[in-house]
């Protein structure tokens, strides 16, 4: 007779689950409210989502406090891992979600926002991303990734146009392929080491000095391909522009920020111990991937005729830029990754929100996509403020001082130089120069050209409502005054990253 299992609740440390449980409960509450009384206004659901995300944010701040006192926390049979990376990753995820969800309060009616399921799926997706960053267990990473991705595919398809179905199917196919690769890689690592926890895997691999190097290489190739799909690194990027074009601008902006930071955290946990092992050659592969991703995406962005596609290629290029941090692997580089992504998140939020504001439902004559460059021609004549704000976000993305992303680029290049990657730093600087061309192209269109379409000024503000304007205002303020809080932010991030040993 076997003894009954006795598990003390203290040893489970269930509080490590709170940040994920809050959005899950929120999603269930939203679903139940809809079951009890249907047809409620969307602003109620937006406010409920914001409320739950705010509670989530509060619990994360609490964890940041606990982490600085007690160090890394494990919980739930040591599956959950709350360390500095998990806390910053979740903070970025939750804060950007809080900023993106009010974008659904448009003045024009888009039918996906009238479904409570939209908000429930949104919250489930956030929980998935949070699970992904707050563990080093490969199975839970996989489950979190799939929970988040499946919700995201549905959110894209809910936009309900032919292009968004196409986008959802393409993203789903690519995501399924990536999930397959991830499980192959994880399976091989498990077969080699008998563990699915990343720190165990690294310990076992180091203990027998990578004797099964062939298998390790195969596993790493699979994992790199799967993260390549999620982070849209070249040559796995092909889905990105189509998916961004097909989904609504608000969701495209969200996709360029949140799924990527989750994948970056996992890639950091997974590849950090392999990059500098000198046996796996991951360093060489990553070097090539990073340089290709930065350069080719920039060159493709030059020839785009649609602003949203241009921003899609620019986000690929930024992802390549940031991936360099995982290649460099120093604490300074890893902290620069998070700083860069925070600043990039705000600039991108602003840029995509500006696109979302002028998304009209019926295209004018001669317009073949939602946001061609010609639409913005001569914007400064009709709406000087909007033109100035859009120009500001473009300058920030181009990395002009003293706006947001410049500080990220500065810290990143500095960490490349001090990490001994001088050539890489040079390539990064050159790429920033190339990127300036297509960002400035939009500014030239807005400030120096005559209007192309014969319309009133209404099409540029057709969606604007108070919540959207406040979000854009918030992003503007953050981007302009980033100089004031970059160094305290960097200190906060560095402390968290350093204390969790990365």
């Amino acid at each position: 007779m076997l003894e009954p299992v006795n598990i003390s609740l203290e040893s489970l440390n269930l509080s490590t689950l709170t940040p994920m449980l809050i959005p899950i409960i929120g999603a269930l509450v939203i679903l139940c409210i809809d079951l009890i009384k249907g047809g409620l206004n969307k602003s109620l659901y937006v406010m409920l989502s914001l409320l739950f995300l705010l509670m989530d944010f509060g619990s994360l701040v609490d964890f940041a406090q606990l982490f600085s006192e007690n160090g890394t926390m494990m919980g739930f049979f040591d599956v959950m891992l709350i360390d500095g990376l998990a806390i910053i990753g979740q903070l970025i995820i939750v804060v950007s979600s809080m900023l993106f969800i009010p974008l659904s309060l448009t003045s024009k009616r888009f039918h996906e926002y009238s479904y409570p399921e939209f908000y429930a799926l949104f919250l489930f997706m956030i929980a998935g991303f949070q699970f992904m960053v707050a563990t080093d267990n490969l199975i839970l990473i996989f489950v979190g990734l799939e929970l988040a991705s499946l919700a995201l595919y549905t959110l894209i398809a809910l936009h309900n146009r032919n292009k968004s179905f196409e986008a959802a199917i393409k993203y789903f196919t690519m995501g399924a392929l990536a999930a397959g690769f991830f499980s192959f890689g994880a399976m091989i690592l498990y077969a080699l080491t008998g563990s699915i926890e990343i720190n165990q895997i690294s310990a076992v691999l180091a203990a027998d000095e990578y004797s099964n190097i062939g298998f390790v290489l195969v596993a790493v190739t699979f994992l790199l391909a799967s993260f390549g799909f999620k982070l849209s690194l070249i040559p796995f990027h092909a889905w990105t522009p189509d998916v961004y074009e097909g989904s609504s601008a608000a969701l495209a902006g969200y996709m360029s920020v949140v799924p990527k930071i989750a994948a970056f955290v996992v890639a950091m946990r997974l590849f950090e111990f392999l990059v500098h092992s000198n046996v796996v050659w991951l360093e060489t592969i990553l070097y090539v991937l990073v340089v290709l991703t930065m350069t080719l995406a920039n060159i493709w962005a030059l020839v785009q005729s649609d602003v949203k596609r241009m921003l899609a290629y620019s986000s690929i290029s930024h992802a390549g830029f940031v991936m360099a941090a995982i290649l460099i692997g120093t604490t300074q580089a890893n902290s620069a990754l998070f700083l860069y992504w925070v600043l990039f998140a705000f600039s991108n939020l602003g840029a995509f929100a500006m696109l979302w504001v002028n998304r009209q439902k019926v295209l004018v004559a001669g317009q073949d996509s939602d946001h061609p460059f010609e639409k913005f021609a001569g914007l400064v004549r009709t709406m000087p403020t909007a033109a100035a704000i859009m120009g500001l976000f473009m300058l920030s993305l181009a990395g002009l001082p003293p706006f947001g992303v410049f500080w990220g680029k500065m810290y990143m290049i500095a960490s490349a130089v001090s990490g001994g990657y001088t050539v890489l730093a040079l390539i990064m600087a050159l790429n920033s120069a190339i990127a300036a061309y297509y960002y400035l192209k939009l500014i030239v269109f807005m400030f120096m050209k005559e209007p192309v379409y014969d319309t009133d000024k209404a099409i540029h503000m057709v969606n604007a409502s108070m919540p959207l304007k406040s979000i854009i205002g918030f992003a503007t303020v953050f981007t302009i005054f980033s100089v004031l809080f970059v160094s305290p932010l960097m200190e906060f991030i560095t402390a968290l990253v350093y204390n969790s040993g990365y």
Partner: protein
Amino acid sequence: MEHMDVANPYFGVFVLFVLTFGAFYATTVLARLASRAMAAKDNEKIKLTVYECGPEVTRQPNRISTQFYLFALLFLLFDVEIVFMFPWAVDFRLLGWFGFVEMLLFILLLAIGFIYAWRKGALEWHNIK
């Protein structure tokens, strides 16, 4: 709660495998025989067209009604639920109160999903006519 002592720990799985094989074959054969014997054999014109319970092909290019997918999804939901519940029921005494509460939470999550599907009308067959 002791398992039978056999040379290979997976012997039981093998037995189950063989049994399932036989049972599956028998079920399909039985189903075929029964449906042959009991089916109403009237060959009207509409029944012999491409797909009997779909509307005109021009309106619905795929021949399988989407309602089948809904049923398949719901089936999958409860199928997986049973997969989780069965080992829990076998080891119910071992797992004790902790396992009981865990399973209750799991069922609660599924129940919300089920009620949601029910209230949204996923369990009703919407007649296209």
